[in-house]
C-alpha cells in the first residue's frame, strides 16, 4: 500500500508537470481533433480552432458565428490523475495502456465538442431544451466524467496486468 502511494505521488508529480507545461499545445491539438466532430453539426461547417494561452478559441472561417472561448485546460487536467493511477499498475500490458491513452484522448475531444455546442446553444437561447441538454452533458463530462474516465482506464489496465494484485 505504501509503495502504491509513493508510485501514485511520483506519477501525480510527473503528470502535473506534463499538464502544466504541455497543456496549451495539447489543448490546441484536442481542439483541432474536435473540428471534424463539430462539422457534423451544419452550423459549425466552417469551424476553426486556435490556441490562446490555456484557452482555445472557436471561430468561423466564413463569419457564420461569433468568436467563442473555451477553458480547454479545465477539460484535460484529468491527465494528472490518469498518469498517477497508471503509475500504480505493476507490469501492465502495454497494449491496454495505449488503448487507455486513446480513450482518454477521445474523451477530451468529445468533452471539447460538447463544451463548444453548450457554449453556442446557451448563447442562442439559454432557456431552450437544446441549451439545457448540452449543459447537462457538459457538466456531466467536466465534473464526474473527468474522474470516471481516468478511473475506468486504470481499472481496465489494472485488471489486465500480468500479475493480479
Amino acid at each position: 500500500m505504501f509503495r502504491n502511494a509513493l508510485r501514485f505521488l511520483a506519477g501525480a508529480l510527473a503528470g502535473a508537470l506534463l499538464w502544466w507545461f504541455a497543456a496549451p499545445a495539447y489543448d490546441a491539438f484536442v481542439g483541432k481533433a474536435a473540428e471534424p466532430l463539430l462539422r457534423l453539426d451544419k452550423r459549425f461547417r466552417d469551424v476553426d480552432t486556435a490556441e490562446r494561452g490555456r484557452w482555445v478559441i472557436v471561430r468561423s472561417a466564413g463569419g457564420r458565428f461569433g468568436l467563442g472561448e473555451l477553458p480547454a485546460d479545465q477539460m484535460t487536467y484529468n491527465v494528472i490523475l490518469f498518469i498517477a493511477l497508471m503509475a500504480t499498475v505493476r507490469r501492465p500490458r502495454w497494449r491496454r495502456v495505449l488503448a487507455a491513452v486513446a480513450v482518454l484522448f477521445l474523451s477530451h475531444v468529445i468533452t471539447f465538442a460538447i463544451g463548444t455546442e453548450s457554449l453556442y446553444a446557451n448563447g442562442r437561447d439559454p432557456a431552450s431544451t437544446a441549451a439545457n441538454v448540452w449543459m447537462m452533458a457538459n457538466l456531466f463530462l467536466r465534473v464526474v466524467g473527468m474522474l470516471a474516465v481516468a478511473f475506468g482506464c486504470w481499472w481496465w489496465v489494472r485488471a489486465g496486468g500480468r500479475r493480479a494484485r
Partner: protein
Amino acid sequence: MKPARFLIRFIVLLAVLYLPLTLQSVDAAVIVPFSRAIAVVSGALLNVLGQHVAVSGVILTAGSNAVSIQNGCNGIEAVVFLVAAILAFPATWRQRLVGLVAAIAVIQILNLVRVVTLFLINRYKPDLFELFHLAIWQTVIGGAAVALFYVWTTRVHVPKRA
C-alpha cells in the same frame, strides 16, 4: 466480476445518479444549500486560523480576497463517483452502507481542507491558485476517492450466486 461488466454498471449508475443533479431545480434545492454549508464550516475554520472571513451564500470573503464554492468544488463529484462505484461492485448492502458512510466522511473532510487551503493560497500566493485549484487538489480528491474505493473492495466479501 469481469472488469467490463463492472465498468458498464458503474458508468450507467454514474449517469443515473449525476444527471438529476445538473437540473436547475435540484441544484437550487440540494447542491447550493450543501455548498453553503461547506462555506459556513470553511469560514469557521478560517476564522479559527485568524482570517476574519465573512460568508455570504457560497462566497467566502476577507478584505479584497474572495473564493466561491462552485459545482466541482463541493466534493459532490467524488461522492457521486463513490456511490456509483460501490453500488456497481458486488457486496452486501451492509458492506456498501458502511463503505459509503466512511468514504463520504473522509472525502468531505478532505474537501474542507481543500477549500481552506485554496482560500489561503488565493490570499497569499494568488499566482499558484490555478495550479492548486485544477491540478493538485482535483488530483488529490480524485485519487482519494479511487483509493477509498480500492481499499473498500479489498475488504468486502463478494457474495456468491446460488
